């Protein structure tokens, strides 16, 4: 996997040799015996600082699993992950929790805002969890809401916001503590095409203008095309990658991935899986 692409951010891999993510030989197995599932199989994955990478692949190919491992929500069966040069290995639950808190921002498919908190409070949530209560936090939360175009909706509850707006709040929330890495699992999976476009534009701007390192999982080739690089997964293994930007190229590569030969494989792998996520 080579670094760099036309649309990667200011702080490209060339100027900073330490990658944002360096994952080696990642393996994640679920279950055992006949129900054994290899969600990831000795996968190497690397993201440079300031890069925006999209992960694509058929259902059950291990995209979410990879994201969960990168986000320290789960621990790999084997293999190593280093976040900005810092290895996860040996961290206990508390260590992983603090790492998530300080270094990683999440954007979920179902937004996952707390229904009883208003937009501003939802954005401030990570700081509250971290026990930071200085006025600067609130200032930053406000400016982030302004940045995602929701300055006038601060006091609104999630139930009073549209899906796209909720997702923008959740993006602002992910950025509050200036994480090393923003992870988004199908952030537009639940949105109509207009909201989808806004959210995607926002993410790519955050990457290109402000240098945030972003990894997004998506099924949607237009979404993937926004990224600087698209990495394909199949059966828990890497299935090549293409540079982003050109959506025609991405579509072609994706179609190849979904070709009849690999489809049988895919069916087998999803038949093995004990539970479907979607």
């Amino acid at each position: 996997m080579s670094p760099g692409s036309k649309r990667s951010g200011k702080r490209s891999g060339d100027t900073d040799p330490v990658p944002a993510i360096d994952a080696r030989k990642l393996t994640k197995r679920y279950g055992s015996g006949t129900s054994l599932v290899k969600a990831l199989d000795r996968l190497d994955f690397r993201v440079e600082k300031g890069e925006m990478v999209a992960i694509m692949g058929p259902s059950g190919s291990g995209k979410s699993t990879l994201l969960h491992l990168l986000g320290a929500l789960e621990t790999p069966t084997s293999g190593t992950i280093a976040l900005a040069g810092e290895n996860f290995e040996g961290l206990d639950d508390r260590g992983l929790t603090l790492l998530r808190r300080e270094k990683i921002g999440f954007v979920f498919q179902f937004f996952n805002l707390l229904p009883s908190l208003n937009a501003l409070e939802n954005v401030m949530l990570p700081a509250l969890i971290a026990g930071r209560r200085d006025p600067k936090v609130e200032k930053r939360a406000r400016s982030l809401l302004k940045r995602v175009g929701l300055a006038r909706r601060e006091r609104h509850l999630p139930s009073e916001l549209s899906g796209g707006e909720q997702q923008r709040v959740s993006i602002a929330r992910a950025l509050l503590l200036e994480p090393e890495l923003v992870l988004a699992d199908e952030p537009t999976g639940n949105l109509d095409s207009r909201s989808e476009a806004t959210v995607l534009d926002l993410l790519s701007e955050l990457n290109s203008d402000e240098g945030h390192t972003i990894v997004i999982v998506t099924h949607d080739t237009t979404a993937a095309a926004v990224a600087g690089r698209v990495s394909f997964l199949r059966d828990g293994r890497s299935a090549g990658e293409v540079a982003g930007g050109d959506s025609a190229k991405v579509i072609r590569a994706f179609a190849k991935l979904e070709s009849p030969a690999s489809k049988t494989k895919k069916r087998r792998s999803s038949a093995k899986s004990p539970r479907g996520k979607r």
Partner: protein
Amino acid sequence: MRSYTAVTLRQLSSRRGRLFLTISGIVLGTGMIVGVLLLTTTIQRTFTDLYDSIYGKADLVLAATSDAGALPEDALARVRTTQGVDSAVGQVTAVLSLVGADGPGAELNAAGTTVEGQSYSDLEIVSGRKVRGGREAELEASWAEANGLQVGDTASLATPTGIRDYRVAGLFKFSTGVDFGGEGFGFLPLGEARRAFGQPAGWSEIQAVVSEEGTGAVDQVKRRLDAEFGPGVEVITPQGKSDQIQSQLQALNVILYFFAGMALFVGGFLIFNSFNMTVLQRMREIGMQRTLGASRGMVVRSVLTESSTLGIAGSLLGILGGIGIALALITLLRSIGLPVGALQWTAAAPVAGILMGLITATAGSLIPALRAGRIAPIRAVLGSEGLRSRPKPIRAAIGICLVAPGLYGAFTLGAADQTTTAVVAAGIGGIIAIFFGIALLAPFVVSPLSRLLSWPVRKLAPIEGRLASDSARANPTRTAATATALLIGLALVVGINSLGSSFLNSIEREFDRAFARDLTVQPRGLNPGAGPQQSLAPSVLGKISDLPGVAVATPERLVATAQLPQVAGRKGNGPQGLLFGFDPSVYDKVDSSQIDTGDLTRAEAYARVGKGALTVGKGYAEEAGIEIGHEMLLEGASGVERAPVVAVVDTILAGGQTVSMSLEKMARVYGITSDTQIAVKAESVDARAEVKREIERLLEADYPNLTVLSNDEIKSEVESQISQQFGFFNALVAVAILASLFGIVNTLSMSVLERTREIGVLRALGATRWQIRRTVANESLIISLIGAVLGISIGVGLGWALLQGLAAGVPGVVYSPPIGTMLAVAVAAVLLGLIAAIVPARRAAKLDVVDALSYE
């Protein structure tokens, strides 16, 4: 699976974890019912057996209407010559206490009688022989064993004339074979008993055998004896005696059933809450069943089947628990001095238990079942979305309409001086109405209260506190129902202890006002009104008077009576109360009670008492409309007299149901000659301590069953008696509180389940396990604090209403809030909240982040 019902039952077993939480209230409630039923059966059996044994052969028993009263000497001859009486024996009785090496010990109900007299009882000698004469005693075998006495041993007994030593001549067992919970019985030879009890003539009790068989004959003889002796003497069958005790225990039974009912009520509440939650949770599933063609009725029936199955399962467990509760209650009752035999089984207990469990579970689930029936098929698609409706204002209206008459019901209960069924029903109905009303009102106060109560939590832990309080407010109905279940127990504790604290404070205030004495000498453990009591040896008085520094030592005689004297010419019997005998010539020196003497001076009034007049307690005077100048009719075992009332005494002793007279009059009319206690006044304040030491030295040497108490010590004695009684009540309420604890756990588990995804988000955003735990613990705290705040306020209201009622009959009792109890309740609520949170909080903290995030 063959039927729709089978689907229902399959569902039950799929939620095994929460099943126990759901039925815990039923288990504890039916446990109480079964326990109380077994207890009352046991008590009943104890007394029936007791009187069967003691009065084995006797058809009729004659005794004075007042506790320590004596029948005149010629009474025995008069009974024997009454037509229809075959034979009769007399005995004298007293309560003695065993003097061991380490001071006074167990009390012994001793009877002095002849060998013939003994043959009336149904007992058999198990070792040694019957008493014949001289200083020997015959003791009930299990009591003797418990106190380490065998035939041939010497037993030192504190008698009304001092310590006397007895050789144990024999041990006997009652032929019914029941032991009486440590209560002691024994016989002395008649002559010795007369000397020891200081009763040279007269009888405490006469037993008669009727010559003809059949109740008709017994009734006839009873009527003849009634006519012969008048109302001062009670003629009663052994069965009647047992019935009488039963009816005296009626009040206790009512209290026991009341608490059992409350525990069950809480149980029903938990069922209600739990089923409400499940119906909401299964909305989609039920909607789906409706789309598949299940009718409303089927859905309703399926919920009811589920709940009744749980009800039966819960009550089966409850029956087991009930046996434990009965055993615990028996131990408790023995500890407050009620003789209770070994546990008796009755088939009625399990039947009632299952029935009550079934009814409670079904009633509790009725509303959720109907709600389930109303679920529209579209819910299969929508789930419970958009259903979080706010409680409707009509609820509040109904709630208020229930609380107000409920308080009135409680007032009625307090005001009654006889616990008739109607009064008890009004009271219990009232209290239940209050709780129902509160349950309806509670959802409205949950939101503001939880915001208020979570304030300190939010200050300490902004995010956890905030989330916890939101969680509590998100579902006000559920939070309210959970808090209400807790509130019931807490309110009962506060309400009941309000009575205790008010009485205690009022009594202490009266003591402060009325006690001009410095010291009081009395038998240890004196408790007038709780059956026959020990009395003082006459020689004590003289010895104390002779001590240096003693200005006045004067005896007081307190005797419980079933019938207080009535105004002459009025019909009917007087109420039960306390007869009080004192020496009016010196009493003023030791007592400064407030007395209304009309036109007379205090000294003049006392002088009139010395000449035979009476004073009457304010409670009795107001209730019966007795005024100064009224003529009262005194009908005792030894005579009948009339006497005028010269004063009304402001006392709350015995609820003000008292009639006082001179010692001579008491002896003449009622045959009461022994002193209950001695009031002592020292020559000066400085001499007090020395006098007390002197008296202590005297008692230690010669009268170890007696004790001398300063006024403060008397107060704390009364306090410990009251708190012992209320401790018993508190123990009963604890069962209801325990049940509500499980209710909180249930609600929290539900809340954790509902917020699984939220917990996942928090964890993903960097919340530690510990923070998640705190959120759950905080929600628990908020619920339990709402319960405590409401419980304390309702309890104060309840206590106040009960007390207003009581004060209507006992003038002078003033409400004083049980501060200690209120603090204890608040602390207990915090602890309960934390305990309830342990398991749900751990479960929440252990949730796998990825699983939680994908939870729907």
